[in-house]
């Protein structure tokens, strides 16, 4: 009787302990939680059977144990581990985890002493285990969310023909029209920064302004393949050609700083006297970034100085991407994965005109019919994009976990 009392007292204490810590913890991270409700869900999906084939519960647990050991100073830390431990949300979560483990341990000690209490202790243990997996999920979530870039305000999109000559240029043009109706469908504001045409599209650069733009576009990056009989083809033979789309978030000013001395800014008016002596409509601007040799042009606006502004933004985006490519830190790898940056030459989708269908190669059942509507209306593309977003997010997360596990090998 006496020991039973003691035991229940003990459990109460444990409980109180836990509710206090978890409350504290929630207030600390509440911002994160509110923002990422949807994300939490998908992390939970990590533990469901479907994904177990790729990363087992065991693997994730192992990875988290490694992390905890590193935190407690029990084993030597790799650079990427210290990067994770530096994230401010991580140490409190690990403290919670340590506490739960201690509690389980003392519960076990106690259960050994008293045969009768074994069943009760087992029940208690399973509660602790549940709490532990909750904390584990939160830890994972923090790691996975790090470097998440879904909240960029602006996106720069580039469309260019790939292989297939004239037909590729015509297809690139079709893609441009497709994206423009997509933006109109979504109500995004966009500006064409650059448009090079000659019997088709040689290159188009667009600036899309909307806080949702990156989310709704990032999975468009990659090689788009078209199979059809080109309008120019007399013999009726089906051609395969490609166009390349790249989608980049615009860096914030803190991410990239440009030095005035590194820039050569030119206008086409450069010849002749300029000023009051000349009146043309030409407002195009060309900027050369001397250290990298990168050249950007802009002819969007009737105002030259507005074109200069837009060209600078484009340049910053390009330099930002390059900078990301160069940094090989672990966190940066995560960031890049979150940005949906995969192999630039990955074939992501095929548009088959003869069969009136398109297939996205990244998802199961990625085939959709009624190609004409898909390319003209924008609704179907949004459906596909949302599916991609869900699916790819999960995939990305699995990849990141694998990455973490590799770090411990």
């Amino acid at each position: 009787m006496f020991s039973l009392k003691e035991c229940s007292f003990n459990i109460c204490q444990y409980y109180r302990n836990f509710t206090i810590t978890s409350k504290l913890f929630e207030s600390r991270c509440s911002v994160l939680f509110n923002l990422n409700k949807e994300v939490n869900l998908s992390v939970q999906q990590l533990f469901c059977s479907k994904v177990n084939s790729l990363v087992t519960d065991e693997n994730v647990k192992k990875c988290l144990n490694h992390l905890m050991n590193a935190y407690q100073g029990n084993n030597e830390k790799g650079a990427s581990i210290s990067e994770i431990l530096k994230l401010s949300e991580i140490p409190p979560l690990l403290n919670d985890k340590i506490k739960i483990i201690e509690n389980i341990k003392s519960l076990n000690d106690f259960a050994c002493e008293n045969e009768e209490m074994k069943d009760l202790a087992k029940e208690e243990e399973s509660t602790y285990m549940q709490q532990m997996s909750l904390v584990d999920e939160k830890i994972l979530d923090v790691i996975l969310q790090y470097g998440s870039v879904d909240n960029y305000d602006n996106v720069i999109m580039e469309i260019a023909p790939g292989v297939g000559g004239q037909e590729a240029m015509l297809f690139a043009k079709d893609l441009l029209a497709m994206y423009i109706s997509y933006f109109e469908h979504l109500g995004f504001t966009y500006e064409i920064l650059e448009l090079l045409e000659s019997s088709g599209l040689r290159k188009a650069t667009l600036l899309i302004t909307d806080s949702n733009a990156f989310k709704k576009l990032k999975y468009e990056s990659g090689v788009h393949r078209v199979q059809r009989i080109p309008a120019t083809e007399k013999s009726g033979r089906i051609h395969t050609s490609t166009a390349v789309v790249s989608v980049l978030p615009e860096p914030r000013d803190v991410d990239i700083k440009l030095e005035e001395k590194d820039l050569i800014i030119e206008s086409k008016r450069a010849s002749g006297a300029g000023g009051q002596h000349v009146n043309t409509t030409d407002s195009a601007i060309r900027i050369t970034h001397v250290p990298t040799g990168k050249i950007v042009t802009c002819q969007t606006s009737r105002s030259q100085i507005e074109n200069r502004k837009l060209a600078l933004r484009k340049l910053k985006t390009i330099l930002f991407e390059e900078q990301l490519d160069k940094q090989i830190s672990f966190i940066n790898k995560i960031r890049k994965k979150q940005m949906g940056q995969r192999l630039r030459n990955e074939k992501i989708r095929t548009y088959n005109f003869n069969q009136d269908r398109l297939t996205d190669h990244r998802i199961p059942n990625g085939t959709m019919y009624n190609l004409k509507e898909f390319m003209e209306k924008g609704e179907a593309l949004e459906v596909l994009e949302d599916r991609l977003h869900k699916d790819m997010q999960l995939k990305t997360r699995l990849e990141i976990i694998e990455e973490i596990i590799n770090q411990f090998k």
Partner: protein
Amino acid sequence: MLFRCLSGARTFFSVVSAEACIQCSKSKIITFNRPTRSVSTTNVQYSTVGEIIEQWSDRFKKEGIPEPVESIEHIVAHVIGTSKILDVANARNKQLTSDQRDTLDSLCECRLSRMPVQYIIGEWDFRNITLKLVPPVFIPRPESEMLVHYVLKALNSSENKGQEILEVGCGSGAVSLAIAHTVTDKTVNCIAIDSNPDACELTKENRDRLNLQDRVAVVHATLKDNGSIELSNILSGPNDIDFNSKTFDLIVSNPPYVPTKQISTLTPEIKIYEDLTALDGGDDGLKVIKPLLKYAATALKPGGRLLLEVDPSHPEYIQFFTKKYPVLKLQYEHTYKDFCNNDRFVEILKIS
């Protein structure tokens, strides 16, 4: 008043077009009519925007019109209601209504008589504002967007919360309106003067469109050779301003600066359609700049600045002038280059 100005502009419009035709040689007038008819009769119902662009740009090329492709693209953009020629690319397969097509053809004929595109479509962008433009009021040049840039920089570096600004020769209002439109963290009080009443009216109209009535006052007045500013008796506006006692934190001007002997070398777009007194700066191009320096010497507050757009041959003289007359207490500060690497803008500081 406004109506009178508009109809005045319209009469001018037809006068200049006619003038331009008279200037064309006889043979030109013949070729001028024939292809127009063939363009509009055979294809009026069927041609797409893309085809229209091709036909008219070919026509412009044949007639030696500068910027043939851009010209038609801007005209098409105007007709289909956009300000961006890149939007035209997406409309290439669309067809115009017959009304649109008629408007387009008559606007293109104005271009054949070398009317500047900005006058044809009646507007242009200057920094982040759109200005209505009517001949013969001077069409703002992109260089002056940088003049505004340096004005904004000077205003930014000043600690005074309230800024009294004078612009001499406001034309369409581009400079003053861009300043007033952009500066929001300071109270700017801008007075814009011009000797040309048409320019004053246009500046007022553009000001009202941008809702800047409380920040920009427009005054019909002339800077005289002796460095004083004389109010013209007519026109409404604040008549209580005494330019010979008022002082300013900043004076900005894009005065006429083309030396007279170079006027004949300018393109017909400028010579026929723009008011030449807006750019003819006399023998040395300094006709207005010299009085400006004198006026600034008396009207700038100590620490105030004068910012000028000039011909690349002028900064040297201005530097010499400020050194030669130390009593004016004008200190040459800096010459800035434009995008074409020409010395284009001069900054002068009034010292105490």
